[in-house]
């Protein structure tokens, strides 16, 4: 139950969203948002968070005022994903400046430092600087989950940076040991996941894009992601998401990667398709099939053609489809189209493929 002090105004006007008329309740292929969703668009209503942040920085509104706007925008973003009939939504991560800095701000021993961009997205974040022992002082995402869950018609996935990617992209002035830093981050994230699970969250994602560039980190990813996912509890959906690269360099050791689902970037290179055959039987997959770095809308029919050679492999798995990476990199209209097309693909493959239900 929501604490009345954190109940956003939008709860009193639940969005009008209907399930897709085509939905047959099949849960072996679903569409999901990856992580971020654009929090700003063209209309004045869709600019409210941008305006509120500016006003807060100028001292014209309080942090509490800003938090109310953030809650409102999170609700709107959840509703928009629902309008695309997406089956697993996120809160759009509308309170996050980037994948790393929000976590960095909530961990003792870490400070967000210089601006940096790491991937081909022209998107910056503040690099975490590790200056002391990492500890999580208090839960920092439970409120976000509760707000999103209160308006969502489908499960809400909570997304966190993977400990190894966090360690790879941080400036470590304390541990002087990447593995030690990654383990400390994993312990802090596990605490957060445990609290989220206690609040009712059942879908979790760890983003480990750096594994595509650093396959030698695989053992450390296995160890640290396992720690975090264990905290989610029995039966939770746990996605280890990789993107902006492929995992071909990890070879057959892919099967060691933890989580109920492995997230693969199918846009980046054809190599990701070949990897499907290397996955253990029964392992779920989250296929990033829609390019989050271009406004061009892929034809779901063409995407289906690319999947066809892998039909036999996929129909025996739990399959999630969606964008390859954060949709924050696109304008809002195009982000919505990507989700809509992902859902169209689900409808098509639900009808045309025989799933091992």
């Amino acid at each position, binding site marked *: 139950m929501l604490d009345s002090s954190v109940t956003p105004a939008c709860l009193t006007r639940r969005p009008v969203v209907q399930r897709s008329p085509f939905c047959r309740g099949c849960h072996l292929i679903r569409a999901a948002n990856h992580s971020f969703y654009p*929090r*700003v*668009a063209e209309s004045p209503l869709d600019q409210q968070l941008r305006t509120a942040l500016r006003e807060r*920085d100028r001292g014209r509104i309080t942090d509490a005022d800003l938090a109310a706007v953030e809650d409102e925008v999170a609700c709107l973003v959840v509703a928009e994903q629902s309008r695309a009939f997406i089956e697993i939504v996120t809160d759009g991560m509308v309170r996050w400046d980037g994948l790393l800095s929000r976590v960095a701000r909530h961990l003792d021993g870490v400070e967000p430092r210089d601006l940096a961009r790491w991937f*081909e997205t*022209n998107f910056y*974040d503040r690099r975490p600087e590790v200056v002391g022992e990492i500890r999580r002082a208090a839960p920092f995402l439970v409120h976000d989950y509760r707000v999103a869950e209160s308006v969502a018609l489908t499960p809400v996935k909570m997304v966190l940076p993977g400990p190894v990617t966090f360690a790879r992209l941080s*400036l470590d002035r304390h541990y002087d040991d990447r593995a030690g830093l990654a383990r400390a981050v994993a312990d802090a994230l596990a605490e957060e996941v445990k609290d989220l699970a206690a609040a009712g969250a059942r879908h979790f994602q760890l983003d480990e894009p750096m594994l595509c560039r650093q396959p030698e980190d695989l053992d450390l990813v296995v160890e640290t992601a396992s720690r975090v996912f264990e905290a989610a509890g029995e039966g939770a959906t746990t996605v280890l998401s990789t993107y902006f690269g492929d995992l071909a360099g990890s070879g057959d050791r892919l099967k060691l990667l933890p989580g109920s689902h492995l997230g693969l970037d199918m846009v980046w290179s054809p190599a990701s398709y070949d990897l499907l055959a290397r996955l253990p039987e029964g392992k779920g997959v989250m296929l990033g099939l829609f390019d989050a770095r271009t*406004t*061009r809308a892929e034809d779901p029919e063409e995407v289906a053609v690319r999947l066809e050679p892998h039909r036999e492999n996929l129909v025996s798995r739990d399959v999630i489809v969606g964008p390859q990476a954060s949709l924050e990199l696109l304008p809002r209209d195009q982000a919505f189209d990507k989700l809509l097309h992902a859902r169209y693909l689900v409808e098509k493959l639900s009808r045309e493929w025989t799933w091992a239900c």
Partner: protein
Amino acid sequence: MGLLTSTVGSFPKPAELRRARRQFADEEIEAPALREIEERAVRGVLALQEEIGIDLLVDGELDRGDMTTFFAERLEGMEVSGLVRSYGNRYYRKPVIVGEVRRTAPMTVERWRFAQGATKKPVKAILTGPYTLMDWSFNEHYPSREACCMALAEVVREEANDLVAAGVRDLQIDEPAISVRPDEVDLATRALGSVTGDLAPKVRTWTHICYGELGPVMERILELPVNGLLLELSNSDFDILGALAGLPEGKLLGAGVVDVHDHVVESAHAVRERIERVLEVLPPERVWINPDCGLKTRTLDEARGKLAAMVEATRAARSARGL
């Protein structure tokens, strides 16, 4: 003479110009009215740099909203998207490549001529490089990033040639995206080379790179086909300083010694310390002094304060060396 000063390009837009740009976008004023206000603002930026004592001036890029969108609005085959976040609470309209990219007319030459005509000091011309134009655009047309990048290299090359023909002697080609995909540094180098290849004897070429993970590609960056590298150093606490010792003979470094994403105006003393760190690695005759990046995100007072501290610190460093 070593330790000359310059800036990376953009300056904060005065309130009058911001208002005029909004009015122009809303079709409340015509292009000549906007132009008049822009030119007044450019004179102001030039006067500010002269007053502070900057050696190589810029026009402040006051006619540019964003360093890629500006070109997208002037090239055939490019459009502009809805708002996309770049960082924090900052958004821009990202270019979309929808067809064959072509330059139908010079895009920056007339503005550079105006700025150079308004000052006796040299004015640097600034273009966005082909790799960054490609990487920071949505590509809906070209079959590959390489094809896209090389097509953009051709239009940047044409623009660079026109600038040099107009009299430009310092040409900066910004490539901040160059570090985001280490596997594409070859492509970025080839594209930049196709722009600068014919220019070298006539003009001093620079490239500016910032806010990237430069470590893994640093050796390649040092070899880029330009005469000088303008690098952000302060924001990242000089973490690439050691590698700069490998800067090939004859190449210049433009060292970023003030942080343009910090509201705090550094003291001249703090800036001097940064300059001295750079001079431990390279001799003064190979070092230029700059801010980390463009100043457009600062207020005018902050920009003035940071540049004044930079020039004061540079003069002290020069004086200590009898330069």
